[in-house]
């Protein structure tokens, strides 16, 4: 591809044009990130009178802390659960909508709406639905013999936050899957039909493999979403409880830093989170093209 090269008469104009972007990055990313990095090596005393430089002590304590390791485990379960649930439902909906002809646009619009709902609102919504006292879901579940209470059962709480977090993400995944499905040439499906493959077989041997680039991309995006963008969902439903059962890493950063005021540990946790994001981003960029199998 040929790119058009533009030369500016002086040097002040290109710098001026870049300045807003640079300023935004500096103020909202570089500065807070470096603050967090600095903070993670410091420890304040209980009254905030003295600050010591403690090298990696904050990190060492964290990795030895069973509560932190528990949060790590909870995060893995939560992210995988959310990703799996939202992607499989989104794929199911996309396949069904893709078969429609006249009502396709209407359904697409309806399925995209949840994406416009803020995470906290989504959390409250599901909190009402699953409220042990007044919710409709516990009432139905009680009829089926399950005594739902996400305030006392860790499993129930985890299921609740996974549903609440996944629900929002279905819209996003759905759009990508639908676009992916529509880019598969119809003649491939027809050729497979003539080749004697049943509808199910066509899906698993032709359609699903051809969707794999989309699937992989969404997997990374969803894991990142579940790990970092679900603070509102957790905060509005379980607040990390009961007994740390839904205390994911991002929520723990907030609790330790802003509620318990252990700034050093909290900063160390966010540095670890930053490292995880970097790794996920690298994985995505490095492997997304290799996973494309045609």
């Amino acid at each position, binding site marked *: 591809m040929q790119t058009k090269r533009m030369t500016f008469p002086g040097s002040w104009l290109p710098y001026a044009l870049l300045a807003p972007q640079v300023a935004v990055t500096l103020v909202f990313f570089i500065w807070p990130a470096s603050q967090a990095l600095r903070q993670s090596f410091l420890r304040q005393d209980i009254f905030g009178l003295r600050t010591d430089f403690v090298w990696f002590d904050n990190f060492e304590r964290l990795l030895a802390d069973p509560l932190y390791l528990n949060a790590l485990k909870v995060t893995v379960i939560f992210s995988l659960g959310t990703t799996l649930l939202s992607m499989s439902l989104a794929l199911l909906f996309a396949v069904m909508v893709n078969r429609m002809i006249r009502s396709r646009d209407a359904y697409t619009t309806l399925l995209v709406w949840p994406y416009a709902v803020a995470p906290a609102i989504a959390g409250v919504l599901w909190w009402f639905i699953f409220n042990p006292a007044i919710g409709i879901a516990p009432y139905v579940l009680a009829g089926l013999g399950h005594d739902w209470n996400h305030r006392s059962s860790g499993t129930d709480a985890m299921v609740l936050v996974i549903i609440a977090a996944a629900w929002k993400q279905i819209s996003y995944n759905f759009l990508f899957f639908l676009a992916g499905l529509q880019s598969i040439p119809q*003649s491939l499906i*027809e*050729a497979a*039909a*003539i*080749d*004697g493959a049943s509808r199910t077989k066509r899906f698993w041997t032709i359609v699903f*493999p051809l969707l794999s680039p989309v699937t992989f991309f969404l997997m990374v995006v969803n894991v990142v979403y579940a790990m970092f963008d679900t603070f509102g969902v957790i905060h509005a439903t379980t607040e990390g409880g009961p007994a740390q059962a839904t205390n994911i890493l991002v929520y723990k950063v907030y609790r330790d830093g802003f509620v318990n005021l252990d700034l050093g540990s909290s900063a160390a946790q966010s540095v670890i989170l930053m490292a995880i994001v970097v790794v996920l981003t690298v994985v995505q960029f490095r492997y997304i093209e290799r996973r494309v199998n*045609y």
Partner: protein
Amino acid sequence: MASITMENLGKVYAGGVRAVTGVNLDIADGEMIVLVGPSGCGKSTLLRMVAGLETITEGTLRIGDRVVNRLEPAERDIAMVFQNYALYPHMTVYNNLAYGLKNRRMARAEIDRRVTEAAEMLQIGAFLDRKPRQLSGGQRQRVAMGRALVREPAAFLFDEPLSNLDAKLRVQMRVEIRQLQKRLGTTSLYVTHDQLEALTLADRLVVLDGGRIEQIGTPMEVYARPATTFVAGFIGSPAMNMLPAGWLRGVVAADALAHLPAGADLIGLRPEDMSLAPASDGRLTLKARLMLLEPAGAESHLHVKFDGLDDMFVIRLPHVPNVQEGAQLAFSLAREALHPFDAKTGLRL
């Protein structure tokens, strides 16, 4: 191996658009039938109806002695070669060929035997573990053919399989398809918009226009006696010239057109049926001014204006004549070369 019988076959889409009307066609076992017509004439729709990819809304379709109107594509025992080849991009060539056989739960050894045999026949043995994107257009075309071959179906369906190839490769593949089809003796239905491809490949060709059959016949029958003005204009290149009979009667001897049936008001004349040789033993003479000479190596196309007509007509000579543009020339033609048509109905008389 099977015959294909179409009885009054028709297709009306859900929106009420009519694509195919009243098609009656008997395809004998082992015959190569070419469906030809301009784009939008319904030829692809007809093929897809045979394949089972479009529902049949009218009439009866038989493959062998089974009525297959309501059968799934897989149950019709046909194989199809698509215009864009429709190779499975994530599978190797081997798996592309084997896919249809695996779906039919064939034994692994038998699959292997058939794939190897087809690959050898099509000279794609060296590419069996490549993916389609690593192949050239011609090789992909062969793989698409191979996928049809290994199935050993009752009939092959070809949907403009050569239209994505360059001109040279197209001629080569055309010959190969014809040889292969003759060797295997498999009933084939072939769709194309290219009249030359149709003429060279077909045992019989079917000319379609507006969803109806205009003419069925061997290539030479259709070429020598086009049944309608549409067929006359579509088959043959350059297209047949259409002269108004009134004008023609005015410029030739009074008895020269006596052999033409009454009511013939449009006279067809193939470009190659005229020559620069002087008229003798009953040949007719037409005078024309040469407007443009197109030499094409072994032959030449002369664009001329006949005296008294405004339109340009084309004359094809098997050599390049030594004449100047703007010259007044005299062409001669045999009386039998004239094709009489009724301008109103478009039918041959």
